[in-house]
């Protein structure tokens, strides 16, 4: 292994600019003459807009224009869309209400954008916005997803009666019901998967710039997938055709899903720039705005059941979930509680019968869409909480119950679409149990009890499906786009390489790992490789980064393009060295002719390809540049075992995580340092979900967690150091054998924490987040017993 090849713990190439303050995020970009856009937002969760009077605001100092939903309609600016069609059980298509870029007729959640003021300075725009007079007729708000389907609940959208977007199902109901009726034991859990705010530390931002001379638009935006943004803004919003719109996503300060989506503000900045005569319009969300408008994650209410026989063999699993979509269907919202969720309900286990029902509902809250893990954390939470609870009810060791039910031959077709291709679930569980000294737990528990602490241990044996592909498969399930990835490899005449990728890096370290792949393949140092991404003018097309897909899908595209580069370079080398192509070998960065000492370095061949003196250009085109599109043949299936140990202070309800081991199987690993970092970050977000975070609305739809004063972000002192290790089964569906690691921690962690916590307290459930108050409430039985 070279210092910069596959498997090397190479330091990140992108770090230099970040640690010296030279990162270039959207808010760091200022265009000449730029104005500021400020959004006037609804203070009400649900109201009719009777009248908007912008006259005073238009005359305020520094104001260039004030735009409302009426202006958008007049200019034929379409709404933002949801790109995944889901059909209900009865075959009817989902009921998607309109999502205008500025509210038309009605506001549907606190923070809904009502008007935009464009002014020379931010202070002027804010001052002018205070002069806009909006007359509202306030309506009752529908906030509780469970109550939203009841008759008489306030209707969020006319198209969706009983606020129901769809009633979807997956699996064989009759067979599953039959399995349950023959079961020796049924475990039932009512679970709430709490709503989370993604909270990338860089708030969303956009700069729209219209060039009247060229009739061309440029958008700088905090996006995980600039090409998809361009596609949606062109094809659905209808603002400009794709060749007239350039979308640039420069350095992006974290995304976790929330920057996949196409948001109204991006569209409005572009359109407002045109309306303001071509003055660039910049908008930067402050954190309070982010809390009101970024798409949230999770928010499921589920009844889950597990049927087992007398020996703990699983017979079936049933889940009924109500998924809160918020006030509008965000870009991929409908796919999250359906195909990204119920298809993973088999977990790591051989479950012959599964049936899931999901009702998606509208409420007067901000939209909910994919957030790190997207559907898969919710699935793992259901499966792993059920497993642990069932083990307790059956008086079995939870590790043993799992081991009895592990899938151990591959490929394995689950009853819920997925066909797992490779894995070794007992290997990861075994290793994790050794690492945490599972056998020694009882001793540690007694020692903790002597200090007045309640100690618990909990497992989470998660599985995820990454890559979100193949295109034909996702298409048949309702996806509006194919989910392949593209890559272009440009070899310069001096032998340095530029990789153009449709993936986007916003913390994942692609500039390093992608370069490692090239270094490994071409035998050149990684610092001779540049990764170009995030600009629709440079990269032809791509689907972006989410679903832990950039490695398995994006890097495979690069690998395919590299195959073509190698093939062509071989041809060139053969001519230059006057040998037959079949005698030319490529190894460690040089081409040699078998049985001779003739040799050319990769860079020399590159130069020859451009000079084009020594080969017939009628047969071989000059130059060295290749592209590839890769559409995978299957999802990838990372899996692993996380074990959490924690202690609860019985007096205060404070929970402290005292140990954490994670044994993950990500297939082959390109850069272990980066992969470990992804796991750490994922676990932290999962622990955040379990212990600290929740988006809370009051009954009237006002957001109670609108800042870090009330939304509890995990901080350094909420978390332990994590102990990680890996097992490996190579992924058969891509040539690199890699699976994806970006979401694993967030998927695994909540169940591990809550299994440990419920074991410590001896209760069936504690609502997430298990804040000190919620834990203290859950201990009422212990206090009563003591009295």
């Amino acid at each position, binding site marked *: 292994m070279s210092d910069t090849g596959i498997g090397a713990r190479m330091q990140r190439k992108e770090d230099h600019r970040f640690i*010296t*303050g030279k990162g270039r995020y959207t808010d760091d970009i200022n265009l000449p003459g730029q104005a500021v856009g400020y959004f006037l937002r609804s203070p009400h969760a649900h109201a009719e807009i009777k009248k908007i009077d912008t006259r005073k605001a238009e005359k305020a100092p520094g104001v260039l224009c004030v735009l409302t939903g009426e202006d958008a309609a007049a200019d034929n600016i379409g709404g933002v869309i949801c790109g995944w069609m889901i059909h209900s059980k009865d075959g009817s298509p989902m009921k998607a209400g309109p999502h205008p870029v500025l509210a038309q007729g009605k506001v549907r959640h606190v923070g809904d954008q009502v008007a935009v003021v464009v002014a020379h300075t931010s202070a002027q725009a804010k001052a002018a916005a205070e002069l806009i007079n909006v007359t509202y007729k306030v309506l009752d708000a529908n906030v509780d997803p469970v109550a939203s389907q009841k008759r008489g609940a306030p209707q969020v959208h006319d198209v969706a009666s009983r606020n129901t977007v769809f009633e979807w199902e997956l699996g064989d109901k009759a067979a599953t019901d039959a399995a349950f009726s023959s079961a020796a034991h049924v475990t039932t859990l009512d679970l709430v998967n709490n709503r989370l705010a993604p909270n990338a530390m860089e708030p969303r931002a956009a700069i729209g710039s219209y060039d009247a001379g060229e009739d061309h638009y440029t958008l700088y935006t905090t996006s995980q997938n600039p090409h998809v943004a361009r596609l949606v803004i062109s094809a659905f919003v209808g603002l400009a055709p794709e060749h007239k719109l350039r979308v640039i996503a420069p350095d992006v300060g974290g995304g976790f899903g929330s920057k996949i989506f196409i948001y109204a503000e991006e569209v409005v900045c572009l359109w407002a720039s045109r309306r303001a005569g071509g003055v660039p319009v910049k908008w930067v969300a402050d954190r309070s705005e982010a809390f009101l408008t970024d798409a949230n994650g999770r928010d499921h209410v589920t009844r889950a059941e597990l049927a087992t026989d007398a020996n703990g063999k699983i017979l079936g699993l049933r889940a009924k979930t109500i998924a809160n979509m918020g006030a509008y269907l965000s870009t991929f919202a409908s796919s999250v509680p359906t195909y990204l969720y119920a298809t993973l309900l088999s977990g790591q286990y051989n479950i012959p019968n599964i049936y899931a029902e999901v009702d998606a509902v509208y409420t007067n809250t901000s939209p909910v869409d994919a957030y790190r893990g997207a559907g898969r954390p919710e699935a793992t939470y259901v499966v792993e909480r059920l497993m642990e609870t069932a083990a307790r009810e059956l008086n079995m060791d939870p590790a043993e119950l799992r081991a009895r039910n592990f899938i151990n031959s591959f490929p394995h077709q689950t009853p819920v679409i997925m066909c797992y291709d490779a894995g070794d679930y007992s290997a990861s569980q075994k290793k994790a149990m050794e690492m945490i000294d599972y056998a020694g737990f009882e001793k540690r528990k007694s020692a903790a009890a002597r200090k007045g602490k309640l100690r618990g241990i909990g497992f989470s044996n998660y599985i995820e499906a990454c890559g979100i592909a193949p295109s034909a498969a996702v298409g048949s399930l309702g996806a509006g786009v194919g989910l392949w990835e593209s890559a272009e490899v440009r070899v310069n005449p001096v032998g340095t390489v530029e990789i153009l990728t449709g993936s986007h890096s916003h913390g994942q370290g692609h500039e390093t790992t992608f370069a490692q792949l090239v270094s490994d393949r071409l035998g050149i140092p990684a610092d001779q490789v540049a990764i170009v991404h995030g600009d629709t003018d440079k990269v032809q097309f791509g689907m972006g980064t989410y679903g832990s897909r950039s490695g398995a899908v994006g890097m495979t595209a690069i690998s395919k393009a590299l195959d073509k580069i190698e093939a062509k370079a071989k041809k060139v080398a053969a001519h230059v060295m006057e040998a037959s192509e079949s005698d030319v070998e490529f190894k460690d960065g040089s081409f040699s002719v078998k049985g001779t000492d003739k040799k050319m370095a990769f860079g020399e061949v590159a130069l020859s390809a451009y000079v084009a003196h020594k080969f017939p250009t009628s047969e071989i085109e000059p130059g060295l540049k290749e592209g590839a599109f890769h559409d995978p043949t299957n999802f990838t299936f990372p899996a692993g075992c996380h074990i959490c140990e924690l202690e609860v202070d019985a007096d205060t309800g404070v929970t402290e995580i005292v140990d954490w081991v994670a044994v993950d199987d990500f297939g082959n690993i390109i850069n272990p340092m980066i992969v470990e970092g992804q796991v750490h*970050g994922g676990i932290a977000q999962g622990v955040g979900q379990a212990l600290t975070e929740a988006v809370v609305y009051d009954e009237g739809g006002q957001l109670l967690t609108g800042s870090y004063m009330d939304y509890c972000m995990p901080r350094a002192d909420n978390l332990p150091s994590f102990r990680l290790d890996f097992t490996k089964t190579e992924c058969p569906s891509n040539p690199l054998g890699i699976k994806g690691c970006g979401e694993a921690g967030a998927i695994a962690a909540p169940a591990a924490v809550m299994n440990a916590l419920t074991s410590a307290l001896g209760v069936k459930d504690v609502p997430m987040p298990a804040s000190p108050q919620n834990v203290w409430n859950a201990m009422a039985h212990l206090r009563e017993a003591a009295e």
Partner: protein
Amino acid sequence: MPAISMTVNGEKVCGEVEGRTLLVEFIRNNLGKTGTHVGCDTSQCGACVVHVDGKAIKSCTALAVACDGASVDTIEGLAQNGKLHPMQEAFREHHGLQCGFCTPGMIMAGIDIVKRKGKKLKEETIREELEGNICRCTGYHNIVKAIQAGAAKM
């Protein structure tokens, strides 16, 4: 508008600001030093941490006028003659950053911890001292390691 002057990363700078101009706005907009970030509006995230007269503060919660005459250090001033500060070096070596957005504040906070608590830092101390710095990417694991290692080399 009040005219102010201060020393930023060792250089004398001056400018005209409004009373309400925040130090972070002055640094980013007037001086064009965009390494100092803004991640919240309630003074909690620490993306904006700079040193004023040698002490770490949140530049989103200080008026630029109030820093008239002060000496300010930002992330851009740490590397000297092309040589990284040991704390910067440690963040890279220990993968203490992912998206990089919290990083300038983390590094400035890390250096401030060393100034107050010395070069030998316990993990627990670092975790406590990072109360005012939020990172969403790293889970803090590698940030803690980086600060510990960077401190030892300062």
